[in-house]
């Protein structure tokens, strides 16, 4: 009865099927096959990536919980723990931008509060095709309002992220959402179905035919209107999720819960099998008891439904009543659907019949892992070298063009739609290198950032991975924060292609090496493969989410200039590196060369110097130099200055002027200080063997840069600010026909 077509529809190979038969000792029925299919999918089983992800460091000073749980956990001291994780929702966001992005937020929030943490921040990394295409604008508009619609209603601030535009994302937008939560360290919850005889309780929204995979298969069984009945996109209900959060946290606080797991991808299947497998137990459930939104659902549909806003709880039988009371107070269903058993099997009954009987270990732990072939793509050689183009004569004009490039322009159009202040902790709002949350009642705070540069990763995936980690850490350093742990989202094409696998392997190794260097553990993450349309893959896009500890929030500097006549210091060194720069792409439409070099020792010293200067309260403004180079970084300090203060900078480096202004050499940070403190910073830099120099002063209404006695940039802040500010909103005005 299980033929090739059914296997293909379930994305299983013949070999995998034979293996399943061996594991369970007989042919699986369709429902059981469906269970293996989702659990052994790339998304849940990490078939193609597992062998590489092992290279990430998973130990660290702050680590409480590494990969393998719903989210990573770090020790914040004072009895507190940070729980954080990132997820992608790329494909659904392309099909239905609003709901795709919204349910992406919903999913990651549940990953966090299922561990006993209250979500305190969300960050989103977004990548779209260029905005001159109306389809891309519509996707962006939908995605942003979806994130805003869900997060705002739920009541979690969306405090940071990134937005990036490139042709490769036109048919494959990327929506990666990271959530950070806070928990009491000794009150963490795990996805374990412990205690034979304990009750298995279903809570939250009812189950409908949402997002069931393996769709077309066996349509005979579902009738002709199957397609109609099974939309692959779920609709999110942030209101219900908020109630679910409060009810779960309340039940946790009252010690009514033994184990808990959210029902995300693969819903009931994933939560039942994983909870049992992790506890070394089994589970027996009655599918007739599962709250259902639609009539006539089959066991297959009930088990594989991806309806949102649901959780599975294991509790001691005598606690069930109190638990139900809490959920009913929050107007939510809480239904006992089964119990924990000791035989290691998942057994499910439907209309009195045993319809599932499979070993949970086989489903959860024995998913095959592949070391797929990897091969350097042919194009790598072609793009790695390039001839330096002739320098444009009017760099002052190029400067304006740069700040108005959507990749560098102001992203307020996006984050103004996000409630970034709810919970009254956000002390550094979106617009700075990293967001900072104060922790009520404590001196310390929490900094966080999301970063990735896919152009670097395209040119050199290994270095791209390294730089992503370094840049994220640098962003944290600009808030005076020490990186504590990493989560990452790896967005790639089809891993069955050796060239893609090579990109993946290289990027992972680059990230792993950088994490070793910075001594931070990877606590989890997400892999999103098959980001391809019509055979064309996206650029390899690793996105790094890093949280950092701020020892003293009162020392956190501003992202913009605060006063006139303050001294501007550059930590690090300007080099002649234009490969992979935004400048090269924007002005010459070239994506070639090598991304800038990265020397870990230098990078670490620069960051340490920045951190120490901030902790000593010497720094008024701090900003790292990244996309767009030094000139753009300086301009941003003016744009983010409450009084729009300008600057005058004099440089004498023996390199091309365009490389000096727009090159993206790593390990550079701009620090601004009062004269007296500036000298202290210089002394600190000498002590730490960090290259540092005074490059100019803040003040005035203009932005002026000299190179070797020649004025190369001379713009009023106002004019450049308007160009920067209006670039993205400008596209959306056109689309409305205003």
């Amino acid at each position, binding site marked *: 009865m299980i033929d090739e077509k059914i296997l293909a529809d379930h994305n299983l190979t013949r070999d995998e099927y034979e293996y399943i038969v061996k594991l369970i000792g007989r042919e699986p029925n369709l429902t059981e096959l469906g269970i293996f299919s989702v659990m052994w999918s790339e998304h849940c089983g990490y078939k193609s990536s597992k062998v590489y992800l092992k290279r990430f460091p998973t130990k660290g000073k702050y680590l409480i919980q590494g990969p393998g749980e719903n989210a990573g956990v770090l020790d914040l001291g*004072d009895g*507190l723990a940070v729980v954080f994780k990132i997820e992608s929702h790329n494909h659904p966001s392309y099909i239905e931008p609003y709901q795709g992005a919204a349910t992406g937020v919903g999913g990651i929030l549940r990953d966090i509060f299922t561990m006993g943490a*209250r979500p305190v921040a969300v960050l989103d990394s977004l990548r779209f095709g260029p905005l001159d295409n109306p389809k891309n604008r519509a996707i962006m508009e939908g995605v942003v*309002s979806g994130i*805003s*619609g869900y997060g*705002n*209603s*739920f*009541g979690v601030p969306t405090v940071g992220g990134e937005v990036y535009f490139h042709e490769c994302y036109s048919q494959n937008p990327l929506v990666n959402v990271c959530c950070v939560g*806070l*928990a*009491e360290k000794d009150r963490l919850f795990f996805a374990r179905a412990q205690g034979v005889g304990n009750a298995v309780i279903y809570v939250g929204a009812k189950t409908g035919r949402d997002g069931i995979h393996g769709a077309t298969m066996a349509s005979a069984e579902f009738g002709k209107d199957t397609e109609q009945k099974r939309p692959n996109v779920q609709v999110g*209900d*942030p*209101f*219900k999720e*908020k*109630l679910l959060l*409060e009810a779960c*946290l*309340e039940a946790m*606080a009252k010690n009514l819960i033994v184990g808990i797991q959210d029902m995300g991808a693969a819903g009931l299947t994933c939560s039942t099998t994983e909870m049992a497998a992790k506890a070394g137990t089994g589970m027996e459930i009655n599918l007739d008891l599962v709250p259902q939104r639609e009539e006539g659902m089959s066991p297959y549909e009930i088990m594989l439904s991806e309806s949102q806003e649901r959780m599975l709880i294991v509790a001691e039988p005598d606690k069930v009543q109190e638990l139900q009371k809490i959920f009913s*107070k*929050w*107007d939510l269903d809480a239904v006992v659907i089964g119990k924990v058993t000791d035989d290691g099997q998942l057994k499910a009954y439907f209309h009195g019949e045993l319809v599932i009987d499979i070993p949970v270990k086989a489903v959860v732990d024995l998913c095959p892992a592949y070391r797929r072939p990897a091969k350097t793509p042919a194009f790598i050689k072609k793009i790695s070298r390039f001839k330096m183009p002739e320098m444009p004569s009017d760099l002052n004009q190029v400067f304006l063009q740069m700040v108005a490039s959507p990749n560098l322009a102001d992203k307020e159009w996006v*984050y*103004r*739609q*996000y*409630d*970034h*202040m*709810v*919970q*009254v902790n*956000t*002390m550094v*709002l979106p617009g700075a290198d990293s967001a900072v949350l*104060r*922790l*009520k*009642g*404590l001196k310390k705070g929490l900094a966080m950032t999301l970063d990735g540069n896919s152009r670097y990763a395209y040119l050199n995936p290994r270095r791209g991975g390294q730089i992503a980690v370094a840049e994220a850490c640098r962003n944290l350093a600009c808030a005076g924060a020490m990186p504590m742990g990493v989560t990452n989202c790896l967005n790639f094409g089809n891993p069955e292609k050796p060239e893609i696998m090579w990109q993946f392997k290289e990027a992972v190794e680059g990230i792993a090496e950088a994490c070793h260097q910075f001594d931070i553990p990877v606590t989890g993450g997400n892999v999103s493969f098959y980001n391809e349309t019509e055979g064309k893959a996206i650029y390899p896009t690793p996105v790094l989410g890093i949280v950092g500890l701020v020892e003293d*929030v*009162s020392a956190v500097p501003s992202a913009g200039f605060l006063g006139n006549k303050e001294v501007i210091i550059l930590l690090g060194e300007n080099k002649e590196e234009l490969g992979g720069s935004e400048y090269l792409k924007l002005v010459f439409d070239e994506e070639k060369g090598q991304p800038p070099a990265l020397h870990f020792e230098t990078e670490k010293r620069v960051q340490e110097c920045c951190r120490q200067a901030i902790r000593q309260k010497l720094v008024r403004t701090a900003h790292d130099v990244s996309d767009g180079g030094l000139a753009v970084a300086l301009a941003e300090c003016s744009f983010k200055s409450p009084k729009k203060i300008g600057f005058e900078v004099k440089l004498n480096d023996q390199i091309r002027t365009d490389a000096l202004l727009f090159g993206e050499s790593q390990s550079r940070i701009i620090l601004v200080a009062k004269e007296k403190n500036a000298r202290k910073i210089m002394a600190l830099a000498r002590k730490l063997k960090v290259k540092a120099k005074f490059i100019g002063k803040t003040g005035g209404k203009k932005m002026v840069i000299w190179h070797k006695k020649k004025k190369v940039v001379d713009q009023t802040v106002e004019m450049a600010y308007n160009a920067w500010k209006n670039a993205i909103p400008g596209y959306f005005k056109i689309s409305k026909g205003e």
Partner: protein
Amino acid sequence: MKFGVVVFPGSNCDYDTFHALQNVMGQETVFLWHKDHDLQRVDGVVLPGGFSYGDYLRSGAIARFSPIMAEVKKFAEAGGLVLGICNGFQILLEAGLLPGAMLRNKNLKFLCQHVHIRVENQKTAFTNAARKGQVLRIPIAHFDGNYYADPELLAELEKNKQIVFRYCNEKGQVTEGANVNGSVSNIAGIINREGNVLGLMPHPERASEKILGSEDGRVIFQSMINYLEKKAGRGKKKATKVVKPKVTPLPPLIGTF
């Protein structure tokens, strides 16, 4: 003084408001559960921001039917102080405790940003601590903050000095550009005729601590405290000494009573 912050399903600024009142302003503060009928003898009620009932249907439309709202109504009719912030303002409008209605922001987008509002009437229970025409810098965060009143109502509001806050620029000028959500006559907050119920879209609880970028929101809470103390006959003197609670990074569980 004792304040009550109402918790509706979907409220999400309830704890923020509680924090501002209790930990920043040093007042005794309790949560009031929407299913309850008991106002716990509070001196002032605050309806916080958020998305009560998901803001499905219309913002504030369903919350007004909550059991607690019947008590809030009675409390208001008896002269009790009621403050509605953002979603709380929307609920007051839907409940008919304040006149007018809310429309979607004119740009059809959620807006979260700092704005400036000018105190148009500093002789109210909610603004007595403000200077005349004082400009406050306070954040907004809403989708439906575009206040609507027909011309007659608007004239009446003007006449009775019921317009308490208007969106303005940094210098205090009431301009078109400052009116980010499109409200009629730049209205950011209004008071009822009797002067004991006020609704405003900006979030004073988000502007009550220096570390969050502004303390201007305190003016509103302080005014309420002043008014209540005066009413209680204690003059504008010292606030009642409340033992300052220990502030923790994690909020207590809301709704656990």
